[in-house]
């Protein structure tokens, strides 16, 4: 139970008002190939549906053969 409480304490329990359908999955363009979906600010007691954090994607164009380097 204590472990569960610790895990819960580390989470941000907010709820999306619009997690139910993809039509309402809103993304914001920041320009230059960057897009952000904003999770909603609501508390867990209102029903967590997995859509509470910011989600982003970045679109590149022409890449070289090197995919990544450390």
């Amino acid at each position, binding site marked *: 139970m204590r472990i569960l409480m610790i895990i819960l304490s580390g989470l941000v329990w907010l709820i999306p008002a619009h997690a139910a359908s993809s039509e309402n*999955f809103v993304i914001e363009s920041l320009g230059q190939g960057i897009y*952000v979906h904003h999770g909603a600010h609501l508390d867990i007691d209102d029903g*967590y549906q997995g*859509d509470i954090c910011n989600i982003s994607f970045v679109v*590149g164009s022409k890449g070289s053969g090197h995919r990544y380097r450390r």
Partner: protein
Amino acid sequence: MLSVARVAVIDTGGSLKVGQHLRQAIAKVTSLPVLYVINTHVHPDHTYGNAAFLASQLNEVEPEFIGHEKLSTTMELRQEQYAKLNAKLLGEDALGTILVKPSIAVKSSLTLDLGDRSLVLTAHPVAHTHTDLTVMDSQTQTLFSGDLLFIERTPVVEGDVKGLIAELDKLKLSGALQVVPGHGPVSQDGVLDMKKAQTYLQVLLNDIRASIKQGVSMEATMNTAAATEKDKWLLFDVANRRNVNTLYPALEWE
């Protein structure tokens, strides 16, 4: 060399369904393949949409899943608890919401080539969690901070509050022109928003230390710590109490 255009995803939401919605949103913007799925830390609201990017879901080349070097082990350790939470909280959406661990671990830093731009991934010491990873886009100097930064919403600490304050100090020097936080609106003044978060965290730290020194119980401290910050943040009561619950026992051993 063959030129390949690429898409990188930074966090995927907390369920297969949210990840699928993300995929559909990407497809409306570009037909390019997603080649990188980056998780900023272990918390399930950021990682359980990964399943939507598995080859079985995409019917195309599976992307590389990328996270902090400690992410994979931490995911394994928490898998059972998170599965129970998902089953309880997601209902039907828990079906197919499976754990997908990183295929690439970042120990210190990693640069991803997206062609006209690169993404620099940085692994951080213990702060919000012990699996924190940030992403900087070279083309726009956009910083994706993960949950090292909350804007408007009360910051949450699972790892080390002193470490989080220190990492925010480093991020203030990153030169970011805009910051996408883990929660809250995009910031055009990241330094200011990081200072706001640091103020809350420092007040919280000071107040908990004072309570411990004065022999005030953790339960009582939950009602008083960082009270001066209460009106500045959303969902303060619930998040602040959880922070005290996490930090008080650790700070007792300072």
